[in-house]
């Protein structure tokens, strides 16, 4: 029997940025990779750690303001590395707080600017109210994307930047232009948790496909029983905001 192919899944800042079920995204990638027949090497990068040499998929989540304060300087030190990996086609998923910090900057309520790593050409401004509730967006690549948003930052995309989806119900990036998230190289950035990947297995499998193809040349998926996900999506679509 041949040795199982291994995929290294890196969670960035799980200690300080994990507030909205972000573990769910890592768990879904880990399990689906296993179900597709791969061995998963699940590793973490936290503030002050050495950034790992070999990485196949990166996931990161949201945090409290205090969590963002803790990691923001550290993130700048690994910014160039993350940009290079994105250029090289490493798939990434960043939600909420890390989505914002992957951009150019975040401007707080009191006019103070927090520098981001500029991997995404976006900027975020603290908004007057929290945009919270069930959200549905639509993407040509993934169909309906279903989740829950809860953010006060309003994110604006440069004209060259592609949103992940168009808002069907909810607020999205800024509550104004009907965009939600960003798709850049194989980097998916979004405000959606719930968690995002469990109810959107198409996105999970897309990230997996990109990682496996990049490393091993081809990806042969197995059929996964997604009946619970299909039912959970149906219910979520009908729930109030």
């Amino acid at each position, binding site marked *: 029997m041949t040795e199982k192919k291994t995929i290294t899944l890196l969670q960035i800042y799980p200690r300080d940025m994990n507030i909205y*079920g972000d*573990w*769910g995204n890592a768990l879904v990638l880990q*399990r689906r990779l296993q179900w597709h027949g791969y061995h998963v090497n699940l590793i973490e990068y936290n503030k002050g750690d050495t950034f790992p040499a070999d990485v196949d998929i990166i996931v990161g989540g949201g945090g409290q303001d205090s969590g963002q304060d803790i990691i923001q300087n550290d993130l700048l030190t690994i910014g160039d590395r993350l940009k290079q990996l994105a250029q090289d086609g490493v798939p990434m998923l960043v939600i909420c707080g890390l989505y914002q910090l992957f951009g150019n900057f975040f401007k707080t309520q009191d006019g103070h600017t927090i520098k981001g790593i500029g991997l995404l050409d976006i900027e975020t401004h603290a908004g007057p109210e929290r945009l919270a509730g069930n959200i549905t967006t639509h993407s040509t690549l993934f169909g309906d994307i279903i989740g829950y948003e809860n953010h006060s930052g309003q994110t604006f995309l440069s004209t060259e930047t592609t949103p992940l989806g168009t808002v069907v119900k909810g607020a999205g990036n800024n509550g104004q232009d009907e965009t939600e998230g960003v798709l850049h190289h194989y980097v998916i950035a979004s405000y959606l948790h719930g968690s995002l990947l469990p109810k959107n297995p198409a996105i999970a499998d897309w990230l997996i496909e990109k990682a496996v193809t990049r490393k091993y040349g081809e990806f042969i998926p197995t059929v996964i029983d997604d009946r*619970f996900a299909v*039912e*959970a999506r149906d219910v979520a679509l009908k729930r109030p905001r």
Partner: protein
Amino acid sequence: MSKPYVTLLGKTVRYIARLRGGGSALPGLFVEKIDPDFIRRTLADLTHGVVVISGTNGKTTTTKMVVELLESQGLRVFTNRTGSNFARGVAAALLGEVNHKGELAADIAVLELDEAHAVNFVKNVPPTHSLLLNVMRDQLDRFGEIDTTARMLHAIASATTGGVVLNRDDPRIGAAAFVQSLDVPLRSYGTHASLQRLFPSDDDLRSDDSALPKSAHLYADDTSLESLDGQTATISYGGKTTTVNLKLNGIYNTLNAVGAVALCRLIMGDNLQEAAMIEALQNVTPAFGRGETLTVGGQPLELVLVKNPSGFRLGLSSFSPDGYKTMIAINDNYADGRDMSWLWDVDFNSLQRSGVSTVSGVRAFDMALRLQYDEIEIAKVEPQLTTALRHFISDTNQPKRIFCTYTAMLALRRELAKITDVEHIS
């Protein structure tokens, strides 16, 4: 409007609301509207003042314990025992208790208050004493951040006039930043260091070390849970150690009981009748839906309320699934929280061996999906609660346990009341 009219009108609305079978808060809302000063005025004359209990988890059970401990001291206690913990819930409970002149036959009020509502409440009615339990990840769709919740509890402590009892082990309430700025007398409760691993906080969720600096504050008085073996707890305070046999289940209920003891000691001071307090403590039972046990088909049926990741994790670690049939019921109504993300912050591996018999509630499929990713077997998914419950209890060979969110619990209790003896909570 004069006081007797407000009371009479409020009582009438309460009567009509009960005939309709409606919720407990409506008459309170009515009184709030026509007489915003009703609560403050009615509580102003109590000889032993007003006690506020708040925090994310354990408010209802702890309030019930505090009430029973104070009653053992001979006090007449007014409380909002419906679990309706907004100001209008307090008003509604008052309406049920006051006489036609609007007078309350009580010495002290013990109120469970929702964190956000407590902030406004204490502006009108500064509490004599308060008890702060914990700050956990809960209802972030309402409050935004856990740090916001901590600030709410800080506002309660700041408004308190006589003394505050706080959980020194909570990473936020026990933090230096929280304690330093308070100039009300502080007392603490908590556990011996050897027990702290039994109380995971959200900060331990994905790491072993907590980021917040612990307060080095020395509290004037500490009540501590020294050890726990099943339902036998050893509690120490004032240089003495007492061993008690509790009727309570679960480690978190026991810690809440220790907080209740600390508060009772503070309120009674030198007038404390210790033997009576300990006896009452041993007889305390969990509040409805907080680990209460009913009998259905000759078998015990436990209801465990879960409403946030830490509560769910504690529930799973407190109650062994061995020999039990497990049902999980998850709703997403406003009182439950609309966001399902929290289910992904709970580890369900402890259910690996027993599996889950039934998954129900509005978000049954979200829960089933969560269990799928922990590779836990599910026998049945049935979103409709009544149908699911009937199926679940049809097997009379095994004791059973239902983990349920708040509105799912209310619905299940209503259904169970039709077939077994369920305490009526008005």
